[in-house]
């Protein structure tokens, strides 16, 4: 199979003539059928027609060089409107931002590559490099020549179509199912980074493409500004669905950044149980231990034996943030002691937990700073630390995970934006 790639920008503006050579107009756009691997060109649009209504089917095209020649007479032409599964390349892709799902970047489309294959013309790739820009400025050849003389040949930077997730802009939202699938293959933490480079509509499009639980993970990992932008831009019902799926402490952090009315509205829309948890956390300042804590911990009554405790653990473990520490509380939920998973597992099943626990507990008060909590975690090498109110009642716990960001930020060295990581990809 002979494959030559043809830059889309070179076709745009070419004269289109019918079978007898009668000029019909100039090429304004091409439409492509959306397909995961073979996006076929289905027709062309002329500059003299209104956009999107008069598509001349590709079967009517006889030649592209040196001008676009049709194989029918203009009287026999049967233009049709653009179908929902077709995208206009110039309007929907050219000069727009797309996600490079392989390199995990947001890039601008400088040009598109078309390739012939089995009689069809396919959209084969997306030019996101300098060459595409130069080509459209009419400078590709001279610059290539100069670069070749300098022995620094100009490198092309094209992405295969299969790596691209296209979102479209405010004018032409694409809502492509292929883009959705491709976005879902990206790790939520990486997607969160990409969001910070996207525009409002693109972010909404990405978040709409994800399941609630994945969207929640993405939102948890996003920068605070991005989080608030997204919650304000999404429909309120969808936003509250995503908040329900988030860890309550993360959800509380995000809501705390929103204007009061917006936050109250979203809280009201959440399921009562999830909303109540978040509300409780919202009562604490975000940088206090109370604001940083999670409510998913395992507490056991003082009367329990080791056996009963293990049964309780089986029940609660799926939701708990950590299972390595279990907290023993009295009837008033006052913290009596901490029990490690190791002590529990090696103990005789009938031993009361009060005999297994260490009564000397390192804890913080809810109104102390999160830095104090981080300091204690570090000093005593703990995985989690309980948070108590003024009467020693257990409110929640802070895990090492919760304070890693605190430490990283305040130490000054933020985590680099784009961390190199070894990726395992589903292709």
């Amino acid at each position, binding site marked *: 199979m002979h494959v030559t790639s043809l830059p889309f920008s070179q076709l745009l503006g070419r004269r289109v003539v019918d079978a007898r050579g009668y000029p019909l107009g100039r090429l304004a756009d091409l439409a492509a059928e959306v397909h995961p691997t073979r996006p076929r060109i289905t027709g062309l649009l002329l500059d003299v027609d209104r956009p999107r209504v008069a598509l001349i089917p590709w079967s009517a095209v006889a030649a592209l060089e040196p001008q676009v020649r049709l194989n029918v007479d203009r009287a026999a032409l049967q233009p049709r409107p653009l179908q929902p599964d077709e995208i206009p390349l110039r309007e929907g892709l050219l*000069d727009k931002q797309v996600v490079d799902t392989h390199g995990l970047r947001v890039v*601008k489309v400088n040009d598109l590559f078309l390739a012939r294959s089995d009689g069809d013309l396919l959209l084969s790739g997306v030019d996101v490099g300098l060459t595409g820009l130069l080509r459209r*400025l009419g400078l590709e050849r001279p610059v290539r020549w100069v670069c070749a003389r300098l022995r620094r040949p100009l490198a092309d930077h094209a992405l295969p179509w299969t790596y691209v997730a296209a979102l479209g802009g405010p004018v032409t939202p694409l809502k492509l199912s292929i883009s959705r699938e491709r976005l879902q293959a990206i790790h939520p933490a990486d997607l969160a980074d990409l969001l910070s*480079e996207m*525009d*409002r509509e693109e972010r909404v499009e990405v978040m709409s493409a994800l399941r609630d639980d994945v969207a929640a993970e993405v939102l948890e990992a996003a920068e*605070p500004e991005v989080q608030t932008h997204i919650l*304000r*831009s999404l429909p309120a019902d969808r936003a509250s669905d995503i908040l329900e799926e988030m860890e309550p402490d993360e959800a509380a952090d995000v809501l705390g950044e929103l204007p009061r009315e917006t936050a109250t509205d979203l809280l009201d829309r959440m399921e009562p149980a999830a909303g109540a948890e978040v509300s409780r956390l919202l009562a604490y300042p975000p940088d206090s231990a109370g604001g940083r804590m999670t409510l998913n911990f395992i507490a056991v009554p003082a009367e329990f034996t080791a056996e009963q405790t293990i049964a309780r653990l089986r029940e609660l473990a799926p939701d708990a943030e950590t299972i390595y520490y279990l907290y023993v509380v009295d009837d008033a939920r006052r913290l009596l002691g901490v029990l490690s998973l190791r002590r529990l597992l090696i103990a005789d099943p009938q031993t009361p937990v009060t005999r297994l626990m260490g009564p000397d507990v390192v804890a913080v008060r809810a109104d102390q700073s999160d830095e104090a909590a981080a300091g204690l975690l570090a000093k005593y090498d703990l995985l989690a630390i309980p948070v108590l109110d003024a009467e020693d009642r257990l409110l929640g716990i802070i895990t090492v995970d919760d304070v890693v960001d605190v430490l990283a930020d305040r130490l000054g060295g933020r985590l680099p*934006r784009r961390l190199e990581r070894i990726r395992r990809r589903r292709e």
Partner: protein
Amino acid sequence: MRGVRRRWTALMAFLAVAGPGIVTAAVDNDANGIATYATAGAHVGYALLWTLPLAAVALIVVQEMTARMGSVTGLGLADLIREQFGVRITAAIMAVLVVANWANTIGNFAGVAGSLEIFRLPRLAGVPVVAAVVALLVLRGGYRLIERVFLGASALYVLYAISAVLARPDWSAVARAAVVPTLRLERQYLYLLMALIGTTIAPWMQFYQQAAVVDKGLTADDLRLERADTALGALVTALVAGSIVVATAATLHPAGIAVTRAEDAARALAPLAGLYASALFAVGLLNAAVFSVAIIPLSTAYSVCEAFGWEAGLDRPLRQAPVFYGLFLTVLATSALVVLWPGLPLIPVMVFSQALNGVLLPAVLLAMLRLINDRRLLGEHVNGPVANAVAGTVTAVLVVLTLALLAWSL
């Protein structure tokens, strides 16, 4: 605080407290603005005062357009231009922007040199030091520090208002001049008119304010507040400009002092500060100049990278955003170099940069008018007839002035 903003990182950090319109307006009165207003007042007295209310109206209209585009589409101006007009027109407009901003930065470095000369510091030593300090502060994340100092020191502009009152101007003449247009068909007069418009409505301001609106996450629901913010900013700009013109017109014009050096302009503060007028003026000028030589090259780099999809942001390593850092440093360094030219007349260079802004502005305005009347982009928020008429008039006036000045020079 955790986190970074998206593309215009750090540049927008302080917008969390101040509105985009007010901040843009505060930066608008840079060293070049001070020089231009002072020159106008000294050379033609109150005769150009009438342009300021009109320019303020035009400024409100243009900046409101840009704020509206940003909040409705959620896209920056450079992004919108690229997505709607393609590579060629984008390249042309970016070239215009880079040239205008370059001229602005050169002008502001001239302001740095001028204020240093008041303190008897040679520009050959002072300008490179200021350039290096600004580059270091911006690259090392001290940008917020510059901002705070700048915004605080912007209060110095009040001094012009006080000085204008103390100079005991003929208030009836001032009022008449502010309302009744007088047009003199002289080259000098038209040139100053061009510079006055160019310094009030500069091309970078539209890119800057729209980016600020987008980064702040404002939507069409916030339009009313954003309009008030824009109007307030423009009024402050016009008041400061008016004060400088009145102060210089009342003190320098009758004495026949032509402003060629910063020291000449400083004398306008004499009614207020007496012997300390020069020092006070120098501090104000230096403050305005230093902030602008940080913000304008940075804003240039952000706009160009936004248009072409290159990575940008002070939070990225050099290797990831070479064009961004390259542009910022090139504009900064070459502008400082130009000012080192021995005997370069500082104030005229500053005024010239503003006239050049006026010449280049129509390119940006025409693109904006196309975009803002596009119903697919803005829906019900497209321009009304009044906004179109005002923006169209500004464009036409600038083109006519450009042609007239060209004809005169030939």
